[in-house]
């Protein structure tokens, strides 16, 4: 069936709550209101207020409570109204949840999920992609799906995973893309990247909304006989090093594309992996296309200027192809 990205996530959580009584949801306005973006719409009627819990506006309490419940063998799914607000719970996530298994051996099977990303003029506090705050925290899995199929398969995998998973949903994609999602039960493995377009000239390593930006650019460039390969990381921690190395080995040229700001961004880490794994295979400089080193500005022309665009990918691909 054809589902929106949002519906795929909603269906994934619904199915997991149906099959496993230890799964429950908590977050702000997720009950009768169904969540700010309606991801949990109808859940409270179907699963009851015990398993669909409206919380105070207290992100540290939400994460702490989810973690505590997970210690009793529950599988909580906590919603952040916007992922920008995850910073309010940073200490709980970084020092409590992420370190638990390494330090004292307790598993923390919980999911922290919510909308992230720009292109919707949300302004500096409703447009961020804060995934790198957590990539730099060993012990967490960080997931950023790009398609309805992956979104459903990965949210189900995250709920079943025995580790704390942070699930970044891209709000620009919520209702803008539809895709085929099978009716039967399936999961997409965490930590595995996916080639969404095969090509021979150069590789775009990217994820989330930028996958669609890269695909658009690839259509334009195909007319110029520039053939892009696009690797969708799907999970940004742990990274699929093999897949990154394999695509660079194949095309010998690589652009890393992400939405969040440049300095200390994921592209730097991926460039280092390429350097370590396949340096000899490179036929050109590793190119980064990223957001600017500033907050995400509010006004549409400014936001447009801040964020990576199709024309950026087209321009940089032409430049790298000619290298």
């Amino acid at each position, binding site marked *: 069936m054809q*589902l929106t990205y949002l*519906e795929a996530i*909603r*269906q994934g959580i*619904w199915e997991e709550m149906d099959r496993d*009584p*230890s799964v*429950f949801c908590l977050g702000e306005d997720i009950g009768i209101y*169904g969540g*700010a*973006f*309606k991801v949990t*719409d*109808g859940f*409270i*009627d*179907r*699963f*009851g207020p*015990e*398993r669909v*819990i409206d*919380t*105070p506006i*207290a992100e*540290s*309490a*939400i*994460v*702490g*409570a*989810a*973690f*505590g*419940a*997970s*210690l*009793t*063998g*529950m599988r*909580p799914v906590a919603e952040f109204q916007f992922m920008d607000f995850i910073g309010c719970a940073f*200490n*709980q996530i970084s*020092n*409590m949840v992420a*370190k*638990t*298994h*390494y*330090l*004292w*051996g*307790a*598993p923390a*099977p919980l999911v922290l999920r919510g909308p992230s990303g720009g292109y919707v003029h949300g302004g500096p506090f409703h447009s961020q992609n804060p995934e790198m705050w957590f990539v730099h925290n*060993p*012990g967490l899995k960080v997931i950023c799906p790009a398609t309805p199929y992956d979104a459903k398969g990965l949210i189900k995998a995250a709920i079943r995973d*025995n580790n704390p998973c942070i699930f970044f949903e891209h709000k620009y994609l*919520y*209702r803008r893309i539809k895709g085929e999602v099978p009716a039967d039960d399936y999961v997409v493995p965490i930590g595995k990247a996916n080639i969404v377009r095969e090509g021979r000239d150069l590789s775009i390593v990217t994820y989330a909304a930028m996958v669609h930006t890269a695909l658009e650019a690839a259509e334009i460039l195909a007319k110029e006989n520039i053939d892009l390969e696009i690797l969708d990381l799907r999970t940004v921690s742990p990274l699929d090093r093999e897949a990154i190395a394999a695509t660079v080995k194949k095309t010998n040229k690589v652009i890393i594309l992400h939405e969040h700001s440049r300095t200390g961004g994921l592209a730097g880490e991926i460039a280092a992996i390429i350097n370590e794994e396949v340096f000899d295979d490179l036929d050109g400089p590793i190119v980064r296309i990223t957001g600017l080193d500033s907050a995400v500005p509010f006004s549409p022309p400014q936001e447009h200027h801040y964020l990576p665009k199709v024309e950026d990918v087209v321009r940089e691909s032409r430049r790298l192809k000619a290298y």
Partner: protein
Amino acid sequence: MAIKKKNSKHSPNGSRRHNGASPATTIDLRTYSIPDLRLEHPDLSVRQSTEKDGHVRYEVTGNLDAPVPPIRDSKYLSKQQCIEIYRYMLLNRKMEVALENLYKQGKVVGGVYFGLGQEACSCASAYALDKDDWFAPMIRNQGSLLVRGFAARDTMMQYMAKADSPTRGRDGTSHFGDIEKRNMVSPISMLGDLIPVLSGVALGARLQGRNVAVMTYIGDGGQSTGVTYEGINFAAVQNLGLVLFIESNLWAYSTPSEMQYRCKDLAERAIGYGIPGVIVDGTDACQVYDAAREAVERAHAGEGPTLIEAKMMRMKGHAIHDAASYVPKPMFDFWKKRDPIARFDNYLVKEKKWLSSKENAELISEVERIIEAEREIAINSPMPEPESAEGGVYCEDGCHDIKPKYGTPKVKKGTGGYKETEAAVHLK
């Protein structure tokens, strides 16, 4: 305890009362009470004062010569239970003396934290928990661990960063946990974060059909953090069985409680949370136990959280490196007379005559023998292999079998099958 059931319909803190002077101008007035079990109310206060030499020091005022009050007889504890708590308090103190010696011998990695003067609070509180209840200690509650069945060697090996320590060298002090047998959540160094976590434990258990009590601690300093508020409020809103001890030990590292908060007693904050609050003398094991037990029973009955403020003084520095020279000496003298072990010793031996001097001496030497044996085991544990720093970041397949601890959660079949959601109005 804090709350009479008949009042709880209106407010968990007390009763609503009519000011009935004239029916036409009836005003609802709320009255709240914070029960105070203490038999004395020290009036000491600390402030900064600039002295003639230009130095700024802390100065204490109040009645520093007040007589030591008696121990309040417990409503619940038997003779045997009192002696058992006393024994744990002795173990707590002797273990920390042993740790101090290990530090002086250069065997401890990092510092040592003490609960000197707080043994009654740590031990009598944890003693009030039932087997299926959960707890999480803070750094001065090393006695709670002993009560909950951990051996002194566990804490000692943690301090020495040994391979056989509960965290196998990965963390020190009382930073370890056990979700299988002893239901302990490992603390982290950041203050207040355990409160929502313990609340979540109670939430998880309740979803599985069990009301467990979840006990944790916070200091008069630590309660200043925002997550403390978030955690207590979450427990209050969800009516979870949190038993929170605020250990008002007067000093947060070097900062006196006068510079930490403005209200008279931290237990008053319970009013703002809408939960019962109670004050106890933290150096009186019987008061600590009684308040804790009533809170635990409230938790088991599904009646929600309780805040217990235990008043005492931290009788050493923040950690072993800190001589606490900022504490006015008369305060040490005042609280030394209220040493929880000396008071309980006096109560059991002289007042109640539940222990003869000979039995007491035997008990003390038995505890010393145990600690010595534990110390030997701890010392003889090897240091971890360097490579053991690796692995275990993730829970890999098969490393844990995760299932609900108290049984399959009851699933309510609600109304409505799955159907696609409609977009929010502004997204249409």
